[in-house]
């Protein structure tokens, strides 16, 4: 996916085509939609947005007998802390995503595709608009694509600053012109999504993968990575590392420690790694002694965390787990949409308790209260934003108890 990322001309249609671009689309259009879906299913591709759901299976949920129009939405609302990969595709090689989106639209029978890009990404918005305009002018977007009967419109839709809109049903609420409120599932968007019509929401990187899968075949894709996590994947490394950046790697072929120590050169501070959040800030932290885990979806799930969106945040031993947890709580309490009481109130309670602890005003009972409040938030809300706060905070409490006890002792000694 990043093969041509360093070539500034790759953004243009001419260069993208010279490198073999849009041949996969031609190939897909010469097959039936079912054959295309089957190819993606056989590749083992799982969504790159965070949940890791098999992409081909998602497409199959679109009811074939529905007379309603069908829609494709590209989730380009990349907002998970630690994640900055979709931006690389949109700004450096946007046509591979457009091509994948057209293939997906063909497979599910969609006649319109909306690319929902977060408002804080003006560069991505511009790059996508330019690329789509160029594709439209060349007959790749619009009516009768590549001389076939397949037609699909494509538009960039800018968000306006709300983390929750990366949750697929919130994205749909926002796209319809409302507040970005998540919806209860079922019905799933594949059955009832945008304007209550069948809708597939796919992540930017997922669709870029689709292009390569159709171009070179499901078997080729599945020969990379490991079972359960096929192909290559983009990883974003941030925090206290010598070489932060976006890396494209095969899943399952290395451990987290190898990635951080060999590829990223260890910490930039010379201090030891204290912990690492391997899948964005919404999942559990791993301690330095837990980094020998193989880097794939299933292995990380077994280790009690998640590969999530591929955002790896590393911190050294100079920072207290209380301060890290507080920063995370500030984020989620700010981004809670406010629909569900446990999340709206609970996230602010958690934040306030952590403020007390971090400022040396916390007591032993605050630790119990943290457990109590977070347990009551878990599983009691419409969308997973509450868990995205609860799981990391509980994991910091569990894995770095000494930091929390030290915070309590600061008050006792004051």
């Amino acid at each position, binding site marked *: 996916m990043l093969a041509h990322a360093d070539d500034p001309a790759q953004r243009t249609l001419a260069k993208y085509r010279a490198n073999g671009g849009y041949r996969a689309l031609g190939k897909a259009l010469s097959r039936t939609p079912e054959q295309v879906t089957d190819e993606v299913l056989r590749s083992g591709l799982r969504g790159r947005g965070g949940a890791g759901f098999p992409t081909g299976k998602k497409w199959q949920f679109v009811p074939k007998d529905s007379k309603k129009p069908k829609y494709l939405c590209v989730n380009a609302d990349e907002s998970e802390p630690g994640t900055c990969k979709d*931006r690389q595709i949109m700004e450096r090689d946007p046509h591979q995503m457009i091509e994948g989106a057209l293939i997906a639209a063909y497979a599910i029978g969609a006649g319109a595709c909306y690319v929902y890009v977060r408002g804080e990404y003006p560069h991505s918005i511009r790059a996508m608009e330019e690329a789509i305009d160029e594709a439209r002018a060349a007959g790749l977007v619009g009516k009768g694509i590549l001389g076939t009967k397949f037609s699909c419109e494509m538009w960039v839709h800018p968000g*306006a600053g709300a983390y929750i809109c990366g949750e697929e049903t919130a994205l749909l609420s926002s796209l319809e012109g409302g507040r970005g409120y998540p919806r209860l599932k079922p019905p799933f968007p594949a059955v009832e999504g945008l304007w209550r019509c069948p809708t597939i929401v796919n992540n930017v990187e997922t669709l870029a993968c689709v292009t390569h899968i159709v171009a070179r075949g499901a078997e080729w894709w599945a020969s990379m990575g490991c079972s359960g996590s096929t192909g290559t994947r983009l990883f974003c490394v941030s925090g206290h590392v010598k070489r932060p950046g976006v890396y494209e790697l095969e899943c399952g072929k290395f451990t987290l420690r190898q990635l951080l120590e060999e590829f990223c050169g260890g910490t930039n501070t010379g201090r030891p790694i204290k912990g690492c959040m391997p899948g964005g800030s919404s999942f559990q932290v791993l301690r330095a002694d837990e980094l020998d885990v193989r880097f794939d979806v299933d292995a990380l799930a077994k280790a009690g965390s998640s590969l999530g969106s591929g955002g790896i945040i590393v911190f050294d031993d100079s920072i207290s787990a209380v301060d890290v947890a507080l920063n995370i709580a500030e984020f989620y309490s700010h981004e809670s949409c406010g629909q569900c009481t446990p999340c709206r109130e609970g996230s602010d309670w958690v934040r306030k308790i952590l403020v007390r602890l971090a400022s040396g005003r916390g007591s032993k009972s605050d630790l119990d209260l943290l457990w109590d409040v977070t347990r009551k938030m878990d599983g009691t809300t419409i969308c997973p934003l509450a868990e995205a706060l609860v799981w990391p905070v509980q994991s910091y409490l569990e894995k770095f108890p000494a930091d929390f006890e030290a915070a309590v002792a600061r008050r006792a000694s004051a």
Partner: protein
Amino acid sequence: MSVPPGPLPRPLVERIEALFARYPYRRAALLPALHLVQKEHGGWLPDDAIRATADLFGLPDQEVRGVIGFYEMFHTHPVGRHVVRVCKTLPCKLRGADGILRHIEARYGVENGGTTGDGRFTLECFECLGHCSTGPMMLVDDERHENLTAEAVDRALGALR
């Protein structure tokens, strides 16, 4: 004497109406339209512009205000000539975002959400701006500045007029 332009000048209305064609229901064009209206009004949404936009969409203006209030990037109060958004989330914090914010606050005499005395810029301490591998970072209007140091901040903000 020329007639002062209303809250939504004709060319802007035409651009918004062109957006309607992209969706089966015009309501879906609300966010893109509000971005255009805000830009037209120097970075914020005055009351009369909100009312005129609501009329254009056939919505009660309270409905439109409810949408505006949900999103961080819309302003309902005047802002400076530029908007400076500094990312404060964990990856940037680990690379020194707190120090960058303190530097801006002290050097330019402005607090989070406030505007400099000369009206040059409004400072916003923002949650994750998605440049985690090149933090600390800030967006100055639509331009990004990565791997920030205090000196780099001064160069970028000093160039603003």
